[in-house]
């Protein structure tokens, strides 16, 4: 398919036009900024409808095979759509575990039957997916997962518990990491990977209330839950390999996701806009030199992230600490956003004490909400403190 510059420019214009006509009106309730923030039925319904609309327009899974519901086009088309979704601050494409993790994994390593069964529902949003990796007692130490899966005839019987299950209460399927062989040579070799249904006796979820006051993820309990044996992906013992592959999709920039648009960022541009809105002593806060100085610093840091990403693909400019840019992106971005959001709250005067349910809250309380939600990023997937260790040891070569 054609990817010359003119064709792509025309395509971009088409997308922009479509978005102008189709981005939904403000629904009157706060929309999730990330897929992890879906906490109410009304948000869920809204986002399912929106994903369906984008899919029906042909703008989702564009690079996935047509045979399973994709469009079979070059990746660059999806990239353009994702960029414009971001530029227009469209609602997020929420079914991220399916679109970004399970889907690519199944397409790359799944059987024909698995592809036929799962892919289309991921794209339409009919089948919501969740992820069952972390367990309550060993946060990031996945290799140590204790949830048991025991083969019993045509079933596996699952016992144990998973935590931080995003969309857990709504999901139809889970990618599940469980231990099939506790006696395996290594703890990793005993793990297997399942594409598990959620609607099975013995699987229950208990929603976890977040610091924001909302719900959004769950603890999932397995109590002699029987799932069909063909839910096993690959062979017994493949669990660690498949889980690591899954995490690759999470971390990498273009790992075959149906869409990468899972986060509406609050950027320095938004912060500037906020400072333009707020009045102090009859002048916009943006006129305050002290505020300006802070904003300039944020912009510089934000631009560092963009430029570092660009530079990371130029090997000759990464010879000093070859792993540094790769390892530090998440830490820097999430910590910068935390500070920017905290700062944005501090600027609001008495309104900074209002929260999302208050009609007078500045911009619907989005900064307060975003600040609180940001901790999922500085804690989840390895806390900032652990990330810093990793960079020190792996990029700088400092001792453990």
């Amino acid at each position, binding site marked *: 398919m054609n990817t010359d510059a003119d064709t792509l420019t025309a395509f971009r214009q088409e997308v922009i036009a479509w978005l102008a006509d189709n981005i939904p009106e403000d629904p009157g309730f706060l929309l999730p900024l990330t897929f992890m923030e879906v906490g109410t039925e009304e948000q869920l319904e809204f986002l399912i409808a929106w994903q369906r609309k984008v899919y029906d327009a042909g703008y989702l899974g564009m690079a996935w095979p047509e045979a399973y519901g994709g469009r079979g086009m070059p990746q660059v088309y999806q990239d353009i759509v994702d960029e414009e979704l971001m530029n227009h601050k469209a609602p997020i494409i929420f079914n991220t575990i399916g679109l970004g993790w399970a889907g690519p994994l199944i397409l790359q390593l799944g059987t024909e039957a698995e592809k036929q069964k799962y892919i289309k529902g991921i794209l339409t949003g009919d089948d919501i997916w969740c992820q069952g990796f972390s367990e309550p007692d060993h946060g990031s130490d996945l290799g140590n997962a204790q949830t048991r899966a025991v083969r019993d005839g045509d079933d596996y019987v699952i016992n144990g518990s998973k935590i931080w299950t995003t969309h857990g209460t709504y999901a139809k399927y889970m990618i599940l990491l469980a231990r099939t062989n506790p006696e395996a040579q290594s703890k990793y070799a005993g793990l297997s990977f399942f594409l598990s249904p959620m609607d099975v006796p013995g699987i229950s979820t208990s929603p976890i209330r977040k610091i924001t006051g909302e719900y959004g993820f769950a603890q999932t309990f397995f109590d002699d839950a029987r799932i069909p044996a063909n839910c096993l992906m690959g062979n017994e013992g493949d669990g660690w390999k498949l889980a690591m592959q899954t995490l690759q999709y999470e971390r990498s920039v273009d790992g075959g996701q149906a869409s990468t648009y899972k986060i509406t960022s609050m950027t320095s541009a938004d912060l500037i806009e906020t400072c333009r809105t707020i009045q102090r002593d009859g002048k916009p806060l943006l006129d305050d030199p002290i505020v300006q100085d802070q904003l300039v610093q944020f912009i510089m840091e934000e631009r560092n992230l963009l430029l570092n990403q660009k530079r990371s693909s130029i090997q000759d400019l990464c010879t000093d600490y070859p792993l540094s840019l790769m390892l530090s992106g998440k830490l820097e971005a999430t910590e910068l956003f935390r500070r920017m959001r905290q700062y944005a*709250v501090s600027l609001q005067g008495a309104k900074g004490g*209002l929260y999302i349910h208050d009609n007078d809250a500045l911009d619907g309380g989005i900064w*307060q909400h975003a600040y609180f939600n940001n901790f999922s990023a500085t804690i989840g997937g390895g806390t900032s403190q652990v990330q810093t260790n990793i960079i020190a040891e792996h990029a700088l070569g400092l001792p453990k």
Partner: protein
Amino acid sequence: MNFGQQARNHKVDSLNFSEEQKMILESARSFCEDTSSIEQVRELLDSSRGYEESVWAQLVELGWTGIAVPERFGGSELGIETVVPIVESMGRSLSATPFISCTLSAQILLQAGSTDQQQRWLPRIVEGQIATVALLDNEDWGAFSTTQELNDELVLKGEKWFVDDAVSAELFIVLTQYQGNARFVMVTRNQLEEGAVQAHALIDETKRSARVDFTGVSVSAEAILVAEDTSEILNDIKLIGALLTAAEAVGATSSCLNLMVEYLNTRKQFGKLIGSYQALKHPCVDILTKLEGARSQVYHAATLFEEGQGKMDRDLEVACRMAKASANDALLMAGDRAVQFHGGMGFTYECDAQLYIRRAQWSQQQFGESAHHRKRLAPLLLSL
């Protein structure tokens, strides 16, 4: 080189602690521990008033509503310096009562009311009627004008924002524009229209504040506090409010730090207590440092209140603003790090860290955030 000497004519290090303050601090701490355990705090989150009326009654019984009120109005005349340890203790236990609102109301009456007005209203506050101040028309603590009006027929028009404890208040002291001046006027609850009080949804669920619409309320001439030039009084009240909020924040920072230290001494990761990792340990020392500085600032301001017998001068203004800016920064850091250092648990509503990070956001804004006060400290400190 012609370096200046330290500004020696300013009281930069006065810090005393009287027997009265000590006794009050001890009794306030144990009272708050008894009446405001973290379970009790959580139970009150969804309540409309945000506090137990029985607890308020006990507090009144202890005489705290009269601490900064002269004896002739039924108070004990111990001054704002003795209010400080009480508020600090309340902050420590995240105990929410209308105590600060009542204290500020009494201070306005003392500064702006006639003897008759004081005689009429102050004893009611001392006896436990809940009073509050309605100062803001918008979110700017720096504003000194008001859009709220009292017309020549003595009918009020306009609403006030961020009226703390409005849901439970019987008395409101409203800053309003009357015949060209900003004036304080007393309104009682029964004068309000049905639905005039619209609770704000606060980020700090332990606190209560509301929009109150005073439109249509008709007041008597006696309800207008006599002081015609209110800008200085308003400034004083905001500074007292800042100091008391700072004291409360210092208390909250201290218990937040305790929460963190406890968790860091319990939770293990990679085979070690997480408190042994310097990446968690050293930021706790930073919080401690900020806390200690803020606490010293708060008691310095309390000391100057005592020394000046409540008169607001430059040194006291500096002290109040420094106390607030320092306390803001301490609690903001503590709340933020408390969530982070609790890891996955920290991200849940169930973890008490959320109570502190929310209090931190509310508290920093009450009577002005740190930048607000630093901006006003600059001319006071730099001889500009």
